[in-house]
């Protein structure tokens, strides 16, 4: 069967949860004009749906009757490239961070309110957009483009403004854009590898270059 393509005006969300009440709450929380919500109550149902349909985001429960949310998370990222968030009942702070280790964009601990759900989903889409920007930058311009993507996201500015900032920084210091771009990308890579332990401080990185 051919995968159903994404409609450009609406985000498709897959909810995987065996709790019918939680599923209804998620569906009722998200504006149907913006989000189309499809529900799967177990792992098998979820994977079958992923074979047939396109999803922009999955909201996963951590504990499911036929497998853990971790197993679905693995399948979503490896086989279908679908980003995901978790809603979990785990209230132990150490174990609650497990979703992030699995690659989740974010997570919430139950019980959740509609407002919290909307924020979770909006933030997830902002993060997806940010990652897409970075990927586009890598694809088009190599290292300079990648650094530009980081600057755009960090300073929330347009591509042209980002490029202008980068030029304005390099020229008076007599630094090549490639050199500065390499430093920014390396610093961002460290930041990701260290799992966001310290904030990513672009100004500080630039300061250290002279």
């Amino acid at each position: 069967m051919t995968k159903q393509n994404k409609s450009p005006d609406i985000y498709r969300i897959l909810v995987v949860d065996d709790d019918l009440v939680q599923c209804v709450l998620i569906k009722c929380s998200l504006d149907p004009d913006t989000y189309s919500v499809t529900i799967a109550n177990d792992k098998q149902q979820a994977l079958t749906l992923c074979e047939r349909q396109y999803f922009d985001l999955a909201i996963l429960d951590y504990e499911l009757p036929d497998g853990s949310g971790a197993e679905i998370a693995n399948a979503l990222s490896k086989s279908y490239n679908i980003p995901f968030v978790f809603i979990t009942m785990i209230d132990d702070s150490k174990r609650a961070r497990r979703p992030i280790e699995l690659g989740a964009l974010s997570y919430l601990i139950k019980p959740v309110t509609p407002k919290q759900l909307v924020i979770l989903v909006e933030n997830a889409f902002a993060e997806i957009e940010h990652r897409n920007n970075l990927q586009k930058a890598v694809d088009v311009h190599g290292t300079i483009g990648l650094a530009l993507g980081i600057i755009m996201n960090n300073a929330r500015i347009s591509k042209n403004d980002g490029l202008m900032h980068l030029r304005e920084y390099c020229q008076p210091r007599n630094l090549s854009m490639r050199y500065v771009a390499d430093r920014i990308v390396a610093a961002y890579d460290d930041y990701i590898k260290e799992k966001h332990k310290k904030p990513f401080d672009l100004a500080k990185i630039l300061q250290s270059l002279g």
Partner: protein
Amino acid sequence: MSEHEMEIVLDETHFRRIISESSSEDTANQLADAFSTQVTQIVDELNGLLNSGGTAEQTARGLLHRLRGSAEVIGARRLSYITRSVLENDQDGFYSALRSALPSLHETIEDTLMEIRKKAG
């Protein structure tokens, strides 16, 4: 959570909050229907496990865990308290605790549904 939770069937503040924050006008009724379907199915399965001699403790625990989850979604505090008490009972054994809790579980489910329906108008 304390025994004080036993006095509250439905946390009105939480329930009103989820209704007012949701994007659908029919959320209360949809939650009531989902809750009714879900708890009926879980209680039937729990009874089935008890009648078949009380094996498969992990399955029964999973069901009770799910019941607690549904209760917490809507703010059904008494139901959440009862399920949690059974799950955490280390003294009487799981099935013994479940058997003792069943009458109050049934009663609380009925009371909770009545409260939700009342709020749904």
